[in-house]
Structure formats: C-alpha cells, structure tokens
C-alpha cells in the first residue's frame, strides 16, 4: 500500500474529496488555475519588490556605514581643525577616520586637461580600492586618479600628471564606485593632504564596519564635539537607506495588495465550483447522511475538496513563481540565485498560505449548506 493510499484510508474525507474532484477534471482544473494565478501574482510581485530593493541596495553600496562630519557654517565655523579630528578619532571606536580637504583645480596630462575636484587625504586606502596600481598606506607623494578622470586624461599608473602646475606620479587608478558616496572618487584626483591649501579640513569621513557602528560613532561624535557649541554637523547616510527601505516596504505591500485581488477572484471561482458540485451531489450527500455520516464529516469532506484545490494551485503557483523569480533576477540583477533569499521564501509561503486559506474559506459556505440540508429533502426526487 502506497503512502498516498495509506493517507486516504486514514483521512477518508480526503479520499472522497479527491474522487469528487476527479469527477469533473476540467472544472477542477479551472478552479486550480485561478488559485495558481493568484499565488503566482502574489509571490512574483513580492519577489519583484525584493529584486528592486536588492538592485537599489546594490546601487547604494555600503553608504549606510558612512558618516560625514562637516563644520557648522551657521555658527561661523569654516573648517575642522586638527583638534576636532583628534576628538573624532577618540570618539570613533570602530572604523576609519579620514579627514578630507578639497579644492577645484586644473589637472592636465600632455595636451589633455580638465578642471576637477582634488581631495587631500592622508589615508585614502580606508575609503577606496585600486583598479590598477597600488594605494600606499599613507599618501605622502604621488596621486590617485579616479576612474572617470583617468579615462578623460588617458592615465595609467606610472604616468605623470600636473595639478595646478605641480607634477605628480600616478600611483593608482581607483576602482569605479557604483554606489552613492560621500566623497566620490570617480571624477576626482587624490593627492597628499599637505598639498591642498589650508590648515583645516572641509569634512571628515568616518567609514565604520556596520550601520550600527556608524550610528554609534555619530552619537559619540555629537557628544564630544557639540557639547558647548554646535561645532559640527553630522550627516548619517543611514537616514537615506532607512527612507529607501521604507519606500520599498510600501511598494511591496502595494504590489502584494494587487496580487491579492486576483486571489480574491480565484476564491469566488472556487466558491462557485464548490457550490455547483455540492448542488449536483445533493442526493449523494443525502445518502451519506442517511447511512450514518455526521454533518461534521460532510463539512470536512467538502472543505478537504476546497483545500485540495488550494494546495494543488498553491504548489503549482509556487513552482511557477520560483521560475519567474529566477528569470527576473537573472535578467535584472544578473544573479538568478538571488531568488532564494529569506524575504522571497516568506513571500512564497505567504502566497501559498493565502491560496490555501482562500480556497478553504470559499469552501465554507458550500460545506455548511450541504451539511445542513435534511437528508429526506435531498433524497426526494
């Protein structure tokens, strides 16, 4: 005896339900199709939302881990001093502190030239990675060229460039940064900090290891520097990512809401199918009741039918949704495996649960109606 037979023997409602559904395969198939579409809609719209969010997060990169400290111009503070930087270094327990000076300067190589932002940094390795060449631990001489500027001036490591008349050997061309960044290197040139005019710094970038560490650092910096007067303004990029996350949360709820409408339609079609089939089977149900089958068992039998429709539709819908998710992620993110993440599993479970729930709910009224018909009435011709 197979497992299925065993199950049917143990749960007779299921056996009866399965036989009843196979009686009119086309009708059952159409009811299942409705659930498939509903489940597919919810799950794939949910996964679509996840894909959008993942794409956006990739664009943003790790900016949630960065904070920017800049002088508070409203209090008349023009730049951050060495003392400020020391205090920031003390406040930040977990992460790199990179003071930055910046200016616009004319950069040229041979007969090509451009006006671009020049950053003065001591420790650019904390923020950037090299595409070609090597970023020294401390930048004392030489320059790093952002990918955009490098393309414009046709620069490779080892070339020399001139910044406002001063000559630098290029140590590295920096990797293009995909995300938004506080100090974007792409169209910039980075030189030793002493080479940029001024004594103080225009901003200090703190790159922490996690969003939480960034947040803790921000709190500590405000406490340390803004005790007596509002010396600095601290900008946490987390506020952007939090807003974006919230937006995608709302978008997802909206998409799933749209998907749910199709499931409601599927529910109505199941209600219709179950109602028709119980009306057709009036006499049979009357016989069941006559030979001693209780009302509750009739209800169970019909709910099992509706449930089977829901489970069949849910399983098929889930499989199709995974297929759709793989295709979508392969296309949008170039990463089909991105489908198999916790959020998506949740959407699939949610969609299947909704599908089965809708079906069973739609079976309730027909079941109740069939079980409450008096057998004498059902058996009268």
């Amino acid at each position, binding site marked *: 005896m197979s497992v299925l037979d065993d199950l049917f023997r143990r749960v*007779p409602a299921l*056996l009866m339900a399965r036989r009843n559904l196979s009686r009119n395969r086309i009708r059952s198939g159409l009811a299942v199709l409705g659930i498939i579409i509903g489940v597919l809609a919810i799950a794939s719209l949910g996964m679509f939302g996840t894909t959008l969010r993942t794409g956006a997060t990739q664009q943003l990169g790790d900016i949630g881990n960065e904070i920017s400290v800049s002088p508070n111009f409203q209090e008349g503070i023009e730049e951050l001093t060495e003392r400020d930087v020391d205090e920031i270094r003390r406040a930040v327990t977990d992460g790199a502190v990179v003071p930055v000076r910046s200016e616009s300067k004319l950069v040229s190589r041979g007969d090509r030239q451009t006006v671009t932002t020049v950053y003065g940094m001591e420790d650019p390795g904390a923020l950037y990675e090299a595409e070609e060449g090597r970023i020294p631990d401390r930048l004392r001489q030489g320059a790093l060229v952002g990918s955009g500027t490098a393309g414009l001036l046709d620069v490779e490591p080892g070339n020399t460039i001139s910044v406002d008349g001063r000559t630098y050997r290029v140590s590295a061309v920096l990797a293009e940064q995909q995300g938004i960044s506080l100090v974007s290197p792409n169209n910039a040139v980075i030189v030793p900090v002493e080479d940029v005019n001024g004594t103080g710094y225009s901003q200090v970038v703190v790159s922490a290891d996690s969003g939480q560490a960034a947040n803790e650092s921000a709190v500590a910096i405000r406490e340390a520097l803004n005790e007596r007067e509002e010396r600095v303004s601290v900008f946490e990029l987390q506020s952007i990512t939090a807003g974006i996350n919230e937006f995608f949360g709302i978008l997802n709820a909206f998409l799933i809401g749209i998907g749910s409408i199709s499931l409601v339609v599927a529910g109505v079609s199941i209600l219709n199918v179950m109602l028709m089939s119980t009306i057709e089977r009036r*006499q*049979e149900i009357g016989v*069941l009741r*006559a*030979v001693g*089958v209780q*009302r509750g068992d009739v209800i169970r039998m019909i709910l099992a039918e509706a449930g089977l429709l829901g489970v069949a539709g849910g399983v098929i819908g889930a499989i199709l949704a995974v297929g759709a998710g793989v295709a979508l992620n392969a296309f949008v993110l170039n990463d089909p495996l991105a489908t198999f993440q916790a959020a998506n599993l949740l959407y699939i479970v949610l969609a299947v649960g909704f599908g089965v729930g809708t079906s069973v709910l739609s079976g309730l009224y027909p079941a109740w109606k069939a079980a409450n018909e*008096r057998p004498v009435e059902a058996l009268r011709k």
Partner: protein
Amino acid sequence: MNHIIELQRVWKRYDTGGEVVEALKDVDFHADPGEFVTVMGPSGSGKSTMLNVLGLLDTPTEGTVYLDGQDVTDLSDREMTVHRKRFIGFIFQSFHLIPTLSALENVEMPTLFGDDPTARDRATRLLERVGLGERLDHRPDQLSGGQKQRVAIARALINEPRILLADEPTGNLDRATGRSVLDLFDEIRREDDVAVIAVTHDPQIGDYADRTVELIDGRIQ
C-alpha cells in the same frame, strides 16, 4: 414486548404554504426481529414518509417512535445519525451508489468516517455473499441494475443493522432480477434476524412477506 421498532399514534403534517398535507394519520406500526413486513398502498399514500420516520430520517409531527425499546422521537441530529448508523440499513429504488467509488468502497462507505479496521474484510465478504465477489473494483456504471441493488444491499448490511428499510427496492428491476433481490432479503432476515420493512407496488413481494400493511391516504387500513 420485543418490537425492534414501533410507531405509536404517529402523525406527519406538511405545511405547504397555507395548505396542510397530512401524510400520516394516527399510524400505529411495529416490526419484530426476523420479520418481513411489506407496506403497500397507492402513490402519495404516505409510504415513503412512514419509512423515513421509521429510519430516523424524519421526525413525526405528533406521536412516538421507539427503537429497540428506547424513545427516539426527539433526538438531536447527531444522535439520530448515530442510531441510523448502528441500527438501520437503507435500500432505495434508484440505488443511490456513489459513482466515483468502487463497489467495495461503496459498501465500506458507511464505515469510512470512523475507525473501523475490519470494515474492508466485512465489505468483501458481503459482496461475495450477494454474488459480486468478482466485481469488487467495478464502478457503479460498470454494473447492471440488479448488481447495483446488490451492492446497495451489501452497503445496508455493513454495520450489521437490526432493521432493513427498502423503498420500492425492485421498482427499477425486471421481474426475475427483482425476485433474486427478494430472495436475498429473505435469506438476510432468516440468517441475520433482521427486520425487513419494504415499501412496494410489486405484488410478488407478497409471497415473501410475513405480514402486509396497507396505507391509504395516510391511514393504516
């Protein structure tokens, strides 16, 4: 008094929108174990109504129903269902088999919702007894009328009832097939000590009956 079932002064009225139909009028009736009683009468005389009251499918408007000495007139739907399952087997004119189930599953059907490990063996033996041992896996549409009625009889017997109620059991069968079904009833009531109450127009049932009750216009003559 060892009546297995008894009706005392039973009335059944149907209120059909203003006009009240009296389907049973002051009916006294009883049957004993092993007895074969036929109920005869013209169409519309209340035979089916009486059978439904006897079978706990319907409750009388007035009067009392005793099953195995117990007053079962005012039981709940649940209790009536339990008593039907335990005491009563039904046989209908149009068989009422479930088309999606095999002969064997149809016979098992009354035991299906409940833990009954020997049901399959009993059903197999009953089908062998009614001469359908070779047809266990046939579906109703693969059986003749007489064979269907035999499956229905086996189904009625699966829970070893004390009473067999048959509403025109030979009505859809030819004479010879009808006779073989009646022979089966005769055998059952003798061997199993079951009370058989059959409603009929069929005069040949008279040959088998211990007693014939005539209903005319809701009254026993």
